[in-house]
């Protein structure tokens, strides 16, 4: 705890920085709207020349990708193409891996998240993440949801926390199923429920961006449908980036799609356009199932 405070006091507060850069961010967004498709919403996340190395091996090659606000962007591509690696760059989860090295800039609302003075813990608090396999903590359902709010001190009182837990569960569509067993273990839920619990947990921290790394790959079709509906609802308030192996899922839930291949973005654009009229031959091959 002591260490945390020191880091917080030394690093400039992210919020302050935000105020300073708000103007820039708006300018940037305005600048983009002039030369890009007018239907596109303002950009939340911009990536410039992202290279990622695992030791000697390069996993991403000069990724340039803009992710619009309050919409769902899906990243598709064959296994090992770097889409998960890119996703993990956005909340700097790759820092956890010793041998991983990232270069280039990723800006969220115009702020470089790889700025050395940025507090990575604070960054991650603003970006929720949902993983491939549901990973509820070995705690009660209530404590799973309350974990983030407690750490960040988001609530003043017990009642407020109860309210936040309830609203998060409601948003994740899980409230009806678990309201009578909030003290039961999170690991006792079914796979689909666990994944929605993880989404609720991410929402409870009040993030702006939610990253999802193949959130439905371990679920059956019914649970998948529930999660997809949920993603569609969440889109109004959150910027969502989802990695998926299911082309149908990408087509159903996302507004924009980026196709990754061998560590490069081959094509990105409106989902409908990518799926109906892909410009690149490789994209066409992939979405029609000829390879991958």
């Amino acid at each position, binding site marked *: 705890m002591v260490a945390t405070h020191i880091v917080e006091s030394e690093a400039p507060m992210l919020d302050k920085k935000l105020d300073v850069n708000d103007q820039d961010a708006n300018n940037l967004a305005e600048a983009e709207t002039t030369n890009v498709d007018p239907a596109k919403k303002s950009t939340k996340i911009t990536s410039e020349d992202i290279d990622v190395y695992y030791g000697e091996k390069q996993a991403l090659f000069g990724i340039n990708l803009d992710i619009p606000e309050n919409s769902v962007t899906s990243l598709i591509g064959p296994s090992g193409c770097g889409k998960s690696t890119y996703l993990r760059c956005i909340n700097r989860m790759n820092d956890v891996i010793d041998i991983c090295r990232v270069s280039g800039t990723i800006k969220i609302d115009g702020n470089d998240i790889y700025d050395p003075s940025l507090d990575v813990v604070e960054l991650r608090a603003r970006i929720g993440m949902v993983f491939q396999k549901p990973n509820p*903590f070995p705690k009660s359902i209530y404590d799973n949801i309350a974990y983030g709010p407690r750490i960040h001190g988001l609530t003043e009182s017990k009642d407020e926390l109860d309210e936040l837990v309830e609203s998060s569960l409601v948003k994740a569509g899980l409230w009806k199923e678990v309201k009578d067993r909030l003290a039961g273990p999170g690991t006792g839920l079914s796979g689909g429920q666990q994944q929605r619990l993880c989404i609720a947990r*991410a929402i409870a921290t009040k993030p702006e961006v939610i990253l999802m790394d193949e959130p439905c790959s371990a679920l059956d079709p019914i649970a998948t449908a529930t999660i997809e509906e949920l993603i569609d609802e969440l889109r109004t308030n959150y910027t969502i980036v989802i990695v998926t192996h299911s082309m149908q899922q990408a087509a159903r839930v996302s507004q924009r799609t980026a196709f990754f291949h061998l560590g490069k973005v081959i094509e990105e654009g409106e989902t409908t356009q990518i799926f109906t009229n892909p410009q690149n031959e490789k994209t066409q091959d992939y979405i029609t199932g000829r390879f991958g």
Partner: protein
Amino acid sequence: MLKVFSVELRGKVSEVLSLYVTGFLTYILPPVIVIGIVYFIGKWKAQRLLKNQGVAKNTGTAANALSLHSRPPYHGAFLALVSFLPAVIVFCAWSIAEGPVIKGMVNSTLPASVGELEAGKQDLISSVIGTVENGLKKLDQKELALLEQAAQYDKEVNKAAAPVEPEAIRKLFEDKNIILAENPEPYVLSAALKSRSFTQFSTYGKYTLFVLMSIAAFMIAYSSIKLRLRARNGVETIVKWFLILASIIAIVTTFGILFSVLFETINFFQIIPPSNFFFGTVWDPRFGWGATGGDGNFGQYGFLPLLWGTLYISFVALFVSVPVGLFAAIYMSEYAGSKLRSIAKPALEILAGIPTIVYGFFALVTLGPFFRDAGAVVGLEINASSVLTAGFVMGIMLIPFISSLSDDIINAVPQSLREGSLGLGSTKSETITKVVLPAALPGLVGAVMLAASRAIGETMIVVLAAGIAAKLHMNPFDALTTITVKIVNQLTGDHEFGSPETLVAFALGLSLFIITLMLNVYALYIVRKYREQYD
């Protein structure tokens, strides 16, 4: 000087080497060659059978009657196993049985008067017979004839002076550097001669039977090799039985040890009432038969002071080792980079390779005096052998044990939980204290319990560092003793085996065994329960 030494050394080395080479050439190489030949015979026959069918390669489907059921190497392995296994089993059984059987036969030839002697005396005679028998090899023809002559002399029948005095025979052996415990009576010599001939006969019989059985089994197995012989399944069955045998040996040994201790414990409790042992608070064994003149006062065998000492020292050891070991494990598994980890972890585990007697030295020679002197400086009276010294050194011994177990357990917590927590914006230490450690807690409790059972059973450190005073006190700077120390004391003393002061060691051993067994069972139960969670 150096040159002379090196030549001498070279001589020694070549002597040792030639010993190994000869041993290898006589005992290991021939069986390997024979087994190899049998293997290739089996393989070759299977291949030939296949060829005779006109099928060049074993390409038929599994159910094809014209193809081999098993691939040729399995036929070879099957032939080798079936040829030698029964003979080896019989050979081993014979070797185990021959000792007792021969001894019984020899004993039955001894005069009836020997059978009436007390047990200790009979054992002595047996051992003299054994020594003489071993010594026979060193005698030359003439000496052997002399010995045979002495053996035939029978006091009762001849009533004349012995042609060869037992004294002379003893002298004869002494010249060959063989020391006999007493002058060998004629019946001892004759028994030794008989024993030798029985042994020779048994050895010849054993080897002959081995060869005959092997040949018979080989012929039967060889003729049984057919296209559809299920050699592969046969080999599988034999392998399974080997593994079963290994498990049985492990289990039977455990029970054997348990029962031998149990029986001696029962003997102890027939002399000393269990209430004296389990609820007594004074440890004061006396020489009940010797020193007190057989008045039946064996002293007091209070178990509680020893149990207290054991638990107290173990507690100090855990107090030292659990925090250090656990924090080291957390650092190694969560913070250390892979480079540092690859160096630091083995370095820490070197501690685990140090024999406990060396820790005992450390406690006795370095740490004990250091604590005593340090205590004197601040005005504390600290004994050189104390609870503190023993517990502290035992704690150091347990650090690598705890840290490496905890490290494994912490690493077994899925990475996804860590990422989930970090993804919510918690710091590393928040992740560890709020997610990783709670998830690993049952396993960590198990690890601490395993460490506790090691601390309770630890012997050498406490023998050297804890002292031998069986007392009930709380002072960590004073000496205390443990169950293990008293077991060592009671068994290494010059006591008679059947006396309670020796037998009490078994009662103590059994108590210790039950305590650590319960701890281990509970620890394993917890660890296993924990494992199921993430499978």
